[in-house]
């Protein structure tokens, strides 16, 4: 990687290439929101211009409107939080009719995240997304219970993961890239990653939240209404770095959208060095509404300070073989 080595000299700002690609989708910058942590973008638009970040990844939407889980839905934990929202949302039809046009009008790049309870539901969602112009990529959130298989989470079942992606691929054709979002709660992440790539995923989103639980000492029962919840925030960042590193080592040509506890530019760079082509900022936005744009600025400056001529030259740099 001759062009990938940091040089000691500084590059003029305008010469630095911050752009990235996920499959055939091009993004001016590599820092995105994370699904479920930006709703549909409107709420964050008060704090920064959505068109200035790489893309808005919208909250995973299902075919029908959904109430989600009962409260309490949240518990703060050391350097993290558990959530149990249960994919509350308006359903795909209302979402595509109202939320996507608004984002496109704001000149934001849009990655739509979908979630389903059956292989068929994912395919239906993909067909509906395909009918709307202006969407840059499709994130397929497979960390959902499969109602056709005793509620086993798709992402924890290599066969079910493949069938979901296969169904989406057949439905959506080759127009927009498919990003499969994987769970770290598996024994062999590389096997699952390889399976979904073989089934047609163009890119991978790593990682979803880590399953956890908090017991309330007053009630002496699980605190969350849904009992278990997804752990996010800085507490899980090392899990994300490990997952990205392992998958990038096994599948170096598959772009990874990295996420998990990123709350600064240095955190984002860590994920890029491990192999991420883009970085999503999730829980950090809860504590800091300007987090996405701040982290983007910090990552930009840090890459230049480290001597990289481009973002792309830093992707997976932690894997390089030392020259003797």
């Amino acid at each position, binding site marked *: 990687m001759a062009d990938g080595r940091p040089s000691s000299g500084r590059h003029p700002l305008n010469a630095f290439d911050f752009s990235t690609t996920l499959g055939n989708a091009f993004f001016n910058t590599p820092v995105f929101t994370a699904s*479920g*942590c*930006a*709703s549909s973008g*409107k*709420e*964050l*638009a*008060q*704090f920064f211009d959505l068109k200035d970040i790489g893309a808005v990844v919208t*909250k995973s939407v299902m075919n*029908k*409107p*959904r*109430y*989600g*889980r*009962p*409260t*309490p*839905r*949240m518990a*703060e934990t*050391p*350097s*993290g*939080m558990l*959530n149990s*929202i*249960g994919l*509350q949302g308006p359903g795909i039809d209302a979402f595509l009719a109202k939320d996507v046009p608004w984002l496109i009008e704001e000149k934001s790049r849009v990655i739509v995240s979908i979630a389903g309870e059956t292989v068929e539901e994912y395919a239906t969602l993909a067909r509906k997304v395909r009918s709307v112009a202006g969407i840059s990529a499709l994130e397929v959130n497979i960390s959902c219970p499969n109602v056709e298989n005793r509620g086993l989470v798709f992402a924890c079942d290599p066969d079910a993961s493949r069938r979901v992606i296969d169904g989406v691929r057949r439905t959506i054709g080759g127009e927009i890239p498919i990003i499969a979002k994987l769970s770290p709660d598996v024994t062999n992440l590389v096997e699952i990653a390889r399976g979904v790539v073989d089934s047609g995923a163009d890119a991978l989103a790593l990682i979803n939240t880590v399953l956890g639980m908090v017991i309330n000492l007053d009630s002496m029962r699980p605190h969350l*209404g849904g009992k278990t919840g997804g752990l996010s*925030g*800085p507490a899980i960042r090392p899990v994300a770095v490990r997952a990205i590193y392992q998958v990038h080592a096994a599948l170096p040509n598959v772009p990874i959208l990295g996420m998990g506890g990123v*709350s600064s530019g240095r955190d984002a760079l860590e994920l890029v060095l491990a192999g991420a082509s883009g970085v999503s900022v999730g*829980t*950090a*936005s*809860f*504590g*800091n*509404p*300007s987090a996405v744009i701040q982290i983007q600025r910090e990552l930009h400056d840090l890459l230049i300070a480290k001597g990289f001529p481009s973002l792309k030259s830093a992707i997976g740099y932690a894997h390089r073989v030392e020259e003797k």
Partner: protein
Amino acid sequence: MSQINRSAAQMNATILANKRVGQYHQIVFGIGDLVKSCRPGNFVAIKVGGDSSRMILRRAFAISRVAESVSFGGTMELIVAPHGTGSKWLCSQPEGAEIDIVAPLGTAFGIPTEPVKALLVGGGYGSAPLFGLAEVLKARGCKVDMLLGASTGAKIYAPMEGKRAVNSLKIYTEDGTMGETGRVTEPIKTLIGNREVDVIYSCGPMGMLSAISALTLGTDVVHQCAVEEAMACGIGICMTCVLPVMGEDGKVAMLRSCIDGPVMDGAQVQWQMVGQVPEGTP
């Protein structure tokens, strides 16, 4: 541009005063021109614990009142109960400390255009935003009566200067250590029956808000309540602080208490369903 929280801004605000008042802390921040956007009922989300903190989420506090003065510019006052790690940290901050705030957030109390008979009901330090509201209502020519309640006298927040803004103030404690013995909701039925109330504004624990909603059921009295539900973000992106609320279409929706609240129509909140979700699909 977005229509959500369109006056909100993130800024570093300096603590101008921090003093203990009974079991609470009265903390005053310099927030400059942001006061012009703050309305009674709005809240502020505050980063706690400093930069190396393991607490990653902001803490939400009702804005007690805002003011503008020549010497301090715009100021915002909060009444904080040092209950958890985050609020204890905030209460321990000295004058001069710079605090990262996002404000003003959420809905505000609706102010009637005509002079009406308003009853303000506060539970514990839930009374804090009611004094600022009382001033606004008084300026509109409303009759403003206030009822404050708590389990014990030490938990009543009723500053001397606040009492000037109301026509009457009655205090209720469950243990009888201050004011009348009993619950703050007890006199409301009679007041409604005697047509002494047009609008009730309430702020306090869910049980109190729910009880007031039951008392206004089937009457013409409007009940605007400021709800309190655990929030991760305070700006509408996390979906954790939802409450079941009846919409105009007759369907129950899980609304975010941060952006569809904290001030909600008490008659529409489905209090009996808090902690549950409706059956079927919406």
